[in-house]
């Protein structure tokens, strides 16, 4: 049941990425190009997503179980540390270079785009680099 719900959420998420234009790297870069001919569309994607999402997260805040009875595992950390900021700064550089972030990378791979698959493979390799250093740090 949770697996089916998870598939549905991923599927709907992917449809939203397609409809919104987030899957088109040229459009994402058009949004990130403030000094050029700026395409503000992606600000509205965020606004639309947050407007719908905020109600659901507010509803879940007081609950210990989901509607399916699963435990609520929403993160509670509030500390803004160097890791969070440096990691996000690095992510932004990669996002600005290609116009692709992790969700659209998977949807692009689903379209069969060769360049999309190259990006996804590199992203998974980047994930592996993170895991390597994390495990080494854990052993030390």
């Amino acid at each position, binding site marked *: 049941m949770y697996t089916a719900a998870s598939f549905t959420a991923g599927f709907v998420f992917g449809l939203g990425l397609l409809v919104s234009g987030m899957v088109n790297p040229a459009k994402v870069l058009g949004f990130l190009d403030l000094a050029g001919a700026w395409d503000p569309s992606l600000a509205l994607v965020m606004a639309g997503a947050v407007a719908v999402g905020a109600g659901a997260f507010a509803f879940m805040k007081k609950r210990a179980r989901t509607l399916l009875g699963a435990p609520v595992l929403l993160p509670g950390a509030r500390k803004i540390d160097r890791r969070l900021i440096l990691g996000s700064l690095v992510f932004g550089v990669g996002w600005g270079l290609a116009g692709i972030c992790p969700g659209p990378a998977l949807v692009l791979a689903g379209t069969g785009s060769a360049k999309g698959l190259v990006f996804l493979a590199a992203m998974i390799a980047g994930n592996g680099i*993170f895991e390597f250093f994390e495990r080494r740090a854990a052993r030390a």
Partner: protein
Amino acid sequence: MSIAWNAFTPASALIGGAIIGAAAALFAVLNGRIAGVSGILGGLARPQAGDISWRIAFVAGLLAAPLAFRLLAALPEIRIGASVPVLVAAGLLVGVGTRYGGGCTSGHGVCGVSRLSPRSIAATLAFMATGFATVYVARHLIQQ
């Protein structure tokens, strides 16, 4: 700054955004989790019993979306201008950065901002800032 009115697609952006928000809402209300793609994918690198199938299902949903979309309508325009070496560099940076930063555009940008999480708001400002800066350097300083 000039606005590219011909590229601006307010209706599909708002509707697509609302669909993304609905997916995040569905996932929170049914599975009790953040729909953060980098974390969901990253968790598969350290597989733990009982923690695998929902991750694979979410990823499969994202991969299946364009296949289903194509049955009903033509896929929207997809243009990847970056060369293969740039895509490799970008992918590595996105892979490493999102894991250290604990999230990406979906987990921090959509879910975290929806929850008014201070961490996610800070992360979103950080990756937006370097995203803007990188495009500025690439388009206006290097390519003149």
